[in-house]
């Protein structure tokens, strides 16, 4: 369903950009290529986006297509659903996943459900973007990672770009999807920079990506935890343990093939998830690995998640609540230790 042949690896880089710039370039390209595309959300226009993603787009496309909304999450997300049913290709921005709860009824009971409930008559080609994650001392009402909840909902596709290439390339195929797609942008990534692919349209929204090959353990991460996993892999390498790092990229539907294939080779898995441990996406991945690779596992599947607390403001407490590379290293070594 992507616009070109699907391929998990980003295309060769031509330039570098920040994650924020990549998202902006993707929106600009989509708005230029297809006049049915428009951006709607709180402060996306005159303010430039609460995280400055849409800075400058109002001047370029005007207030009809870069549409500031009142504080009315349920109504403007629902309006995105209606606009999609009406033939447009809306990109709705919700400032953070925490506020998206106010629109969850619209997302689950309308966007995700109407196609099935209407016997296939009405599809909703809607893209919703929102920020997720902690690490910026924004405290308990601005810092949670609830994308795992959305990955529970049949009818939705859930994306979590962790790289500049994915930030640049995932929007267009998401808009090409006839059904609702949610894109989760970890707030800690906006200032990160990396290579921009020559042809963003070659980015697929189907498969996970192996970000670092390895043999002794599979570390599964996504979005904000990918960097944590890669750092852990470096540290493990220094200790003689070769870790394969997989970036989920797509949280629903999960790419079991890539995950199971890796674990069949490494026989060990550590999942890194910024969500609260109990009932996080990491639980589903663990359950699937056990269902599909039980006899290949040399050790239990390990999970490194956030502490089960409302995210505290104080930096030392927040950092203690979040998954750290050291926790991932310890978990991986324990799996090996317990094994050897």
């Amino acid at each position, binding site marked *: 369903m992507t616009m070109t042949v699907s391929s998990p690896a980003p295309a060769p880089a031509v330039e570098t950009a920040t994650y924020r710039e990549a998202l902006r370039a993707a929106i600009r390209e989509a708005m230029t290529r297809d006049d049915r595309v428009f951006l709607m959300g709180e402060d996306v226009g005159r303010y430039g986006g609460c995280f400055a993603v849409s800075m400058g787009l109002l001047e370029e496309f005007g207030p009809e297509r870069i549409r500031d909304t009142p504080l009315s999450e349920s109504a403007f997300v629902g309006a995105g659903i209606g606009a999609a049913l009406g033939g447009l290709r809306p990109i709705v921005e919700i400032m953070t996943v925490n506020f998206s709860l106010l629109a969850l009824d619209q997302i689950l009971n309308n966007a995700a459900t109407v196609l099935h409930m*209407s*016997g296939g008559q009405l599809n909703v080609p809607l893209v919703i973007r929102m920020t997720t994650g902690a690490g910026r001392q924004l405290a308990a009402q601005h810092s949670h990672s609830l994308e795992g909840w959305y990955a529970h909902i049949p009818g939705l596709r859930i994306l979590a770009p962790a790289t500049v290439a994915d930030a640049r390339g995932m929007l267009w195929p998401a808009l090409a999807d006839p059904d609702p797609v949610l894109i989760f942008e970890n707030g800690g990534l906006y200032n990160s920079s990396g290579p921009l692919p020559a042809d963003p349209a070659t980015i697929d929204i189907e498969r996970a990506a192996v970000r670092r090959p390895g043999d002794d353990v599979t570390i599964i991460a996504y979005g904000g935890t990918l960097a944590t996993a890669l750092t852990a892999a470096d540290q493990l390498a220094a200790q003689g343990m070769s870790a394969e790092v997989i970036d989920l990229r797509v949280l629903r539907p999960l790419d079991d093939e890539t995950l199971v294939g890796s674990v069949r080779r490494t026989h060990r898995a550590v999942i890194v998830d910024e969500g609260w441990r109990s009932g996080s996406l990491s639980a589903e991945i663990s359950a699937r690995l056990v269902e599909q690779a039980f006899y290949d596992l040399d050790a239990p599947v390990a999970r490194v998640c956030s502490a089960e607390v409302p995210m505290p403001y104080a930096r030392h407490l927040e950092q203690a609540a979040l998954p750290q590379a050291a926790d991932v290293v310890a978990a991986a070594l324990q799996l090996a230790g317990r094994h050897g």
Partner: protein
Amino acid sequence: MSTAAKPRRARTKPSTDDRVALLREMLRIRRFEETCVQLYSTEKIRGFMHLCIGEEATAVGVMSALTKDDAVVGTYREHGQALARGMSMTTVLAEMFGKQTGCSRGRGGSMHLFDAALRFYGGNAIVGGGLPVAVGLALADRLRGQKRVTACVFGDGAFAEGEFHESANLAALWHLPVAFFCENNFYAMGTALAREHAQTDLAMRAASYGMVAWTADGMDVVAVADAARRAAEFIRAGEGPCFVELRTYRFRAHSMYDPDRYREKAEIEGWRHHDPIPALTATLRDDGALTDADLARFEKEIEAEIADAVAAAEAAPLEPVAELTRFVTSEHRSAP
């Protein structure tokens, strides 16, 4: 409560033929709903079912003002809305039987009737859940420069949900071509209007959002048709959204589960005198526009239409269980 309803005469009258057609359509819906009661008692229809007996004038009047390009967002009490919009009894009844030939292939049932071709967007069982969707449909028309009307029907109970507040403000703020039709039947399930709202003048409250808003007699199909026509003209003229409160009453319980212990029998009886069907029948008789023969013919035609729909629904196949997971996501994937 009932005394609160202030009937208003319509400013203009539709032609005699039109009024006869409105009567026939109300009769068609009434008989259909009565049949649904029987079919529910014999368990052909299951789940939650909400009938519009007594409220036929609102659905018939509103739909009479719309063209085929316009859009409708309905409620879970939408049998009448769906039929008046032009859906066939066959597809609606088959849906309630849970058959493959139903409009939603048996997946939706009574509360989830849809027809993409007629731009009938359901059939929504989250009270107030359709309001933002209607705003979005109107936004699409605005951005695409289409002069179409989106009619959004909802109840007095839905008016209390936050979705109403947010949707009304968005529609007015963006000057969108959406007509809000509030079916005020004075109850939200067992809760009377005065226990739902501190201020029960809903049209006045809607006006406070910066929308043109008024009230019409929801028990007089001619008044509703006239109000809906004015609303549609207003919107097509680019005057932005508007709100019409239609004061009506349901003669039957909220749903088939409802013991209806919260209303005085006298209140119900009082409203029966405003039954939209006998009222218009009498007027048309007086005007010499309707004979007993006409009525008998209508009844016969409707009876036949219903009988055919029931027979078809009975005979229709079930969706194969193998199709359960179909339509969770789209089958045809196209470029944006």
